[in-house]
């Protein structure tokens, strides 16, 4: 039998027609549609990756000097306690921000889903921070949280609450950055989970209600398991995004005080554009990309084992 789309192309006899072993479907014309995109994507993503890996074995000053150093850059970082400390900061930020954003976003999604009125307005309001660029968010919060000129400490003083130095001290800087990221990105979690909640089938909930299940039980045994694939997707997206944190740190603390908020991306930026050690920066990014890949694989493996029904 000839498919309708095969008739649409006069030269379809030239197309590869090998059937997929699992689905039994022929790739047919589809490969011609996605081929150019695949080639462009391959070049634009494979090229930087290979280039970075190659250059990480050199000592390149972004000028005329290009010395092959083998794995020296890798050994230097992997044996440097400061590198591990900065990796720790990045993970601290990621765990903190993703946890708070997931819990807050899920809670908001459930509450707004049950409201039944004004959902459009609430969603729009919650989405506003998402529309602001990272560096603007950083500068805005830097001003708001300034201990001397900022309005937050002023308001806290008005109601006799303790103030903070926010970004200005090692102990409070990272929590402050997590706070800013939470303000900025919780809406993303909310939007995705909200859409997920609305797509859940109602029958199981009605059956549970008939059987006398409480709201908490319905959430624990119905909502959460059915939502878990979406939760996992959001978790992966937010984790990758938070591991790549740059703009908020760059715009507020610059990695300080001392190195309390230095993250992998700010370290790589500083190494490349301030110190002009391009190869070292690429080494950092290769190591960091492998770490991100490992974390995503762990998540995916965890997701495969988690029952969704």
């Amino acid at each position, binding site marked *: 039998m000839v498919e309708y789309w095969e008739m649409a192309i006069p030269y379809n006899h030239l197309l590869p027609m090998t059937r997929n072993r699992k689905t039994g479907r022929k790739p047919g014309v589809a490969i011609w549609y996605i081929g150019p995109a695949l080639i462009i994507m391959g070049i634009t993503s494979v090229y930087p990756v290979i280039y970075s890996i190659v250059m990480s074995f050199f000592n390149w*000053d972004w000028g005329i000097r290009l010395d092959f150093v083998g794995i020296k850059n890798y050994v230097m970082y992997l044996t440097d306690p400061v590198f591990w400390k900065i990796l720790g900061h990045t993970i601290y930020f990621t765990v903190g921000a993703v946890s708070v954003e997931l819990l807050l976003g899920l809670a908001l999604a459930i509450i707004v889903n049950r409201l039944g009125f004004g959902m459009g307005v609430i969603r729009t309001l919650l989405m506003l921070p998402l529309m602001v660029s990272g560096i603007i968010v950083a500068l805005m919060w830097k001003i708001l949280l300034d201990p001397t000129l900022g309005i937050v400490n002023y308001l806290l003083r008005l109601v006799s609450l303790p103030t903070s130095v926010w970004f200005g*001290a090692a102990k409070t800087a990272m929590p402050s950055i997590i706070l800013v990221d939470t303000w900025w990105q919780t809406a993303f979690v909310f939007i995705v989970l909200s859409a997920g909640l609305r797509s859940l089938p109602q029958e199981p909930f009605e059956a549970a209600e008939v059987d006398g299940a409480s709201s908490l039980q319905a959430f624990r045994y119905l909502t959460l398991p059915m939502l878990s694939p979406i939760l996992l997707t959001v978790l992966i997206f937010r984790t990758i995004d938070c591991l790549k944190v740059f703009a908020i740190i760059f715009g507020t603390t610059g990695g300080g005080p001392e190195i309390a908020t230095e993250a992998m991306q700010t370290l790589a930026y500083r190494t490349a554009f301030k110190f002009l050690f391009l190869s070292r920066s690429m080494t950092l990014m290769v190591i960091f990309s492998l770490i991100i890949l490992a974390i995503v694989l762990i998540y995916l493996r965890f997701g495969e084992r988690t029952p969704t029904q």
Partner: protein
Amino acid sequence: MKTKIFLIINLIIISVLVLVACAPKATPTPETKPVETAAPAGFDWKRFSGQEITLLFNEHPWTDGVRPHIQEFEDLTGIKVNLQPFAEDLYFDKMELAVRSDKPVADVYFLPMDSTAFTQYSAGLIAPLTPYLNDPTMTAADYDLADFPEGFQASGMYPPGDAKAQLYGIPITFEAYILFYNKDLVDKYLGGKIPETFADLIAAANKVTQEGNGEVYGAVMRGIRSDTIMDTLTGVVFNSWGTDPTPLPYNIWFAGDWKKPQVTDPRITEGLSNYAAMMKAGPPNVQSIDWNDANQLFAQGKIAFFIDASLFGPAYENAETSAVVGKVGYAPLPKTSKGSMTGHWLWGLGIPANSEKKEAAWYFIQWATNKENEPKIGTATGGAPRLSTWGNSVYTQALNPEYVAAVQTAMATSRPTAVFYEGWKEIAIMIVDSVQEMYGGTDPAQATENLQQKMLKVTTGQ
């Protein structure tokens, strides 16, 4: 079979493209074309008429100063100017990319005359200006390079200390590190007494902070972990260093050899410690304060004492940007046991090696930095580098007399803060970390001993 062939062809195409693109390319070596023309009777400003040059500038007061006069340059030379200004953070990245581009991006650019310029020189990215200065057909007879102090020129002469060194940048504005103080706060908290010594300054700043109840602070310094604080910091260390030489390329940080850091010298320890003490007398978030934050706090009347770039002075007398107009005092750094000394840092103009219009670019640099135009442009910065400009009434009458006196005094003892070492900024961050350690309570001698070991590790590669 057809699928395999199709995939193999795709893979080959991708692999070839990737390999071609990955092949590392050396940056082209700078090339200065000799100019071969007969010397005219008068200087020929129209020689490159019809050309168009691109200026890659930092959004800096000097850029504000030159902007209204660019039409005069275009009328004089017939050269069209395309000005591309960028905010400072972005500018630095844009500049590093522009000078490394295979194709010309800019013909004149704002040149930080420190290790940045030296690193670009070492990488062959910047064109020498000496050939133009030595060519009477390219440089007007009244240009007078000697009017720029030798110390200023030294920041752009490479290789440093070499008899055949060439000049790679013309200074456009300098900043000496001086003391700004808020007269109202000094009157209110200190009975109007200006500290005479650095120890008095620290004590006075602490007194204001204690009595200010979080509303005002005695001092503010750049405290962020960034190489941007390094020049101000060096100025304060110079104040403890005294009159002993600070020879380039090593400056005070090395004893004539990159393998011999000397940060455990008691004078350096004292200087770094003084800086940390001023940070402690400042707002509690001082470790997240960069120059713009510190400048803003002082301009809003929240700070009694502020040590930083003289460049900030003129803006404090502008009611549009300052709440302390007419209330600011200007002074050289209060003396230590070694006297009152300071440092300076320069912005210059340079020509990227990849520019294809170097001659027209040099015409712009020459015009913007000659004796006629520098005083006009310099009023925007208060940091004109030509000696003659400080005797020019167009310039001095536009500035606060107390400011002029303080800067001129500072200039008399000022030395360059630059260090000409590739990768200097990595070491600069280590020095900044050392100050942060002192701020955090580490004993200054211990902090500089730690610093000495870290610097040795970098410079000896061990």
